[in-house]
C-alpha cells in the first residue's frame, strides 16, 4: 500500500527523522496561509501516488504567499501525468507546502526486503536526487549496502559504514547513523515494504533532512496497522481496482484488452493472460478470485465485468484446489439471475468438485460457451471478443 509524501514525512518525523517544515493544503488559500507561516517562501508539491513530479511540473517554487496560492491553484483539481502514471494521469487534490531549504548535497537512503538474503537491506548512496536504478546501472560502486539482522538490529558500525559510503564527515556521521536507526525502527514497526528517502539532503548549515520520502507498506501486515490503513487515498488508484477491493476481490489489476478474466491463482491467471495474448487477444484485467467460500465474490466479479465498458467477452478458467468448482458454478448461475449479462461467457472448470460444478451449469439453463481445456477456453474467448465488436 502506498501513501502520500506528506503522510510519509509525518511518520518519519514521529520516528525522529528531520523533515522540512511545512503542512499539507487542500485549497490555494490554505497554501497561501502556510506559506505566510513559513516566512513568505515555499515549495509547493503536488501529492500523488507516483514519482516523476518534478519534470511533470508538479513541484513549484513560490517566493511570496500569493505565488504559492497561484501555484496551488494550478495543481489542485488537475490530473498530473508523469512517466510513472497512465496517460490519463492521477488527480491532485492536495499539495504539500514546505519551507524552501538551501541544499548542499543530495544523498540517497532506503530500506527494502532482500528476497535472496531474506533480510531487510539498507542502501545508501552519495548520488541522491535521481532514480537509484540509474545509479545502480551507471556507478554501482556508489551504492553501499548493509543487511539488518533481526537479532542485533541496525548497529552503529553499519550506520557509520553507510555514512562514510555517502562521503559524510565529522558530526554528520553520528547524525546519519541515528537517522538510519530511526528509519530502521519505522520500517520494522510499521511493516514497510519500502522506506526511501531520496533525496536525503545536506542543508547549507550542514544538517541532514529528508527532502522527499516514499513509504510503501506490506499489504499482508496491514491488519495490525489500523493507523496506516486509514491513510489510504483511493482517489489515487484505478477506479476499477478500488471497486474490486470493495467487492472483496483483492487481486484485480486493470489491463489494456477487452476480455474479462475470472481465474484462480496468480500463476494460472498470468498464464491465461499469456495464452490469450498467444491466441491474438488481450485481457481486460487480471483477476485472481482467490479462495471462495460462497457465491458472492463470483457474482461481484461479474459486476466488475459489467462495470468495465471495454469487456466484450468473459473467460472463466478455474482449476479447483482451495477454490471449489461447484461454488464457482453456483456463483455464475447466481450472477446470471441477478445481473443483465450481455457478453459471451466462456467457462472452463477443472479440479475440486468439478463434476458437481458442471452439473450445476448444465442444469441451470444459462447461456454459456463450454471450453474443454485451458487452450480451448482462451481460444474461444479471443474468438468471441472479436465477434462481439
Amino acid at each position, binding site marked *: 500500500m502506498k501513501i502520500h509524501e506528506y503522510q510519509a514525512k509525518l511518520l518519519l518525523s514521529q520516528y525522529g527523522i528531520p523533515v522540512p517544515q511545512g503542512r499539507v493544503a487542500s485549497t490555494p488559500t490554505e497554501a497561501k496561509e502556510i506559506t505566510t507561516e513559513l516566512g513568505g517562501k515555499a515549495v509547493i508539491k503536488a501529492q500523488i501516488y507516483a514519482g516523476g513530479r518534478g519534470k511533470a511540473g508538479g513541484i513549484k517554487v513560490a517566493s511570496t504567499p500569493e505565488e504559492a496560492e497561484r501555484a496551488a491553484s494550478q495543481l489542485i483539481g488537475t490530473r498530473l501525468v508523469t512517466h*510513472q502514471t497512465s496517460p490519463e494521469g492521477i488527480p491532485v487534490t492536495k499539495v504539500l507546502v514546505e519551507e524552501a531549504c538551501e541544499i548542499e548535497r543530495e544523498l540517497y537512503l532506503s530500506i527494502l*526486503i532482500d*528476497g*535472496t538474503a*531474506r*533480510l*531487510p537491506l539498507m542502501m545508501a548512496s552519495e548520488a541522491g536526487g535521481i532514480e537509484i*536504478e540509474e545509479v545502480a546501472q551507471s556507478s554501482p560502486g556508489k551504492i553501499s549496502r548493509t543487511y539488518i*539482522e*533481526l*537479532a542485533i538490529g541496525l548497529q552503529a558500525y553499519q550506520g557509520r559504514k553507510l555514512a562514510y559510503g555517502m562521503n559524510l564527515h565529522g558530526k554528520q556521521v553520528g547524525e546519519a547513523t541515528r537517522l538510519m536507526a530511526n528509519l530502521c525502527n519505522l520500517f*520494522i514497526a510499521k*511493516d514497510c*515494504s519500502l522506506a526511501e528517502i531520496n533525496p536525503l539532503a545536506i542543508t547549507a548549515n550542514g544538517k541532514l533532512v529528508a527532502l522527499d520520502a516514499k513509504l510503501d507498506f*506490506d499489504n*499482508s*501486515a496491514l*491488519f*495490525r496497522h489500523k493507523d496506516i490503513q486509514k491513510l489510504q487515498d483511493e482517489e489515487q488508484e484505478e477506479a476499477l481496482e478500488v471497486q474490486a477491493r470493495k467487492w472483496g476481490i483483492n*487481486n484485480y*489489476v486493470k*489491463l*489494456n484488452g477487452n476480455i474479462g478474466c475470472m*481465474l*484462480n*491463482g*496468480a*500463476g*494460472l*491467471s*498470468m*498464464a*491465461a*493472460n*499469456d*495464452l*490469450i*495474448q*498467444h491466441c491474438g487477444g488481450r*485481457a481486460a484485467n*487480471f483477476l*485472481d478470485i482467490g*479462495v471462495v*467460500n460462497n457465491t458472492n465474490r463470483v457474482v461481484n466479479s461479474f459486476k466488475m465485468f459489467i462495470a468495465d465498458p471495454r469487456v466484450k467477452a468473459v473467460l472463466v478458467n478455474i*482449476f*479447483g*484446489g*482451495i477454490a471449489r468448482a461447484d461454488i464457482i458454478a453456483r456463483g455464475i448461475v447466481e450472477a446470471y439471475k441477478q445481473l443483465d449479462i450481455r457478453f459471451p461467457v466462456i467457462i472452463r472448470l*477443472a*479440479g*475440486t468438485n468439478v463434476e458437481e460444478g458442471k452439473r450445476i451449469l448444465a442444469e441451470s439453463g444459462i447461456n454459456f460457451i463450454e471450453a474443454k*481445456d*485451458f*487452450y480451448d477456453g*482462451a481460444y474461444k474467448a479471443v474468438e468471441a471478443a472479436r465477434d462481439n465488436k
Partner: protein
Amino acid sequence: MSILVDENTRLLVQGITGNEGTFHAQRCMEYGTNVVAGVTPGKEGTQHLGVPIFNTVERAIAETEANVSIIFVPPAFAADGILEAIDAGIPLIICITEGIPVLDMVKVHSYLRNKSTRLIGPNSPGVISPGKCKAGLMLGDIHIPGNVGVVSRSGTLCYEVVSQLTKLNIGQSTCVGIGGDALPGSTFIDILRLFREDKDTRAVVLIGEIGSTFEQGAAEFIRNEMAKPVIAFIAGISAPPGKRMGHAGAIITGSAGKASEKIKALSQAGVTIVPNPAEIGLTMQKNISES
C-alpha cells in the same frame, strides 16, 4: 522413490479444526495419506476427523511420531505456527497459509538458518507423491504415479500442467508447490537438488513466473549440477511492467524479474522452454520420447 512425502509420511495438521484445515485434511486422508495428529491450542484431548488433537506441536510429535507438518493456520498466526514446528524439530513443514506478513517470514528465516527443518511455502499448494501421499490442496485424481517431477511457484498452474501430463499418461514422481511468496522456505534449487538425487525422477517440469530471481538461480544450478532434462514455462510474459499481479512474488523488480530474462537464463542453461502454457504436457511427451 519420490521426494519429501511418501508412504512413510506421518502427517500432522496445524490448524486442523478450521474450515480449510478440516476440508483438506479430509481430502488428504481420502487419498490415503496417513494423517496422525492435529494441533489446535486449547483442544487437546479431543478428536477431529478421527485423529487426536494436541495443544502443541511438541506434544503431537511426542505422542504420534509425526514427521511432516502441514499448516493451515490463519496468516496473523502462521509464522508462530511455523516457528513452533521448527522448534519442535519436525523435519518437514509445508505451509499452505497465504498472506503472511513479510517481516514475519524474515523472522522465520532468521530462526530457520541453523536448523535442519525444511520449509515448503508459505502460500504453497502442497506436495504430492502420486499413489503414496498427498499433503496439499491439489486434487488427488488428476495425478498418476510416474517419473516426471514437477516444481512450481503457482498452485493452480501446477494443477493445469499435471492434468496435461496425466492426460498424456505421463506420471509424476512428486509435484511440489514452492509457493508464490517473496520469501519462500524452499526455492527451485532446493527441490531440483532433491529431484536430482531421486531415482524415480527422470525429467522435471519447472513452472516459474515473473518477479524475483529464483528462476535465474535454478538456471545456474541446472547448468552446473543437474544432468536430468528440465522443461520450463514462465508465466507473465504478457504482464505489463510494474503492475502487481496477485502476490508479492509477482512484482517485476528490475529487469531480472521479467519473464524474458528468466527465459533467457533457463534457455542458456539447456532448459527446454515452452512458450505456450497449453503445450507443457506435449513438450514433455516429445522430450521423453526423444531421450
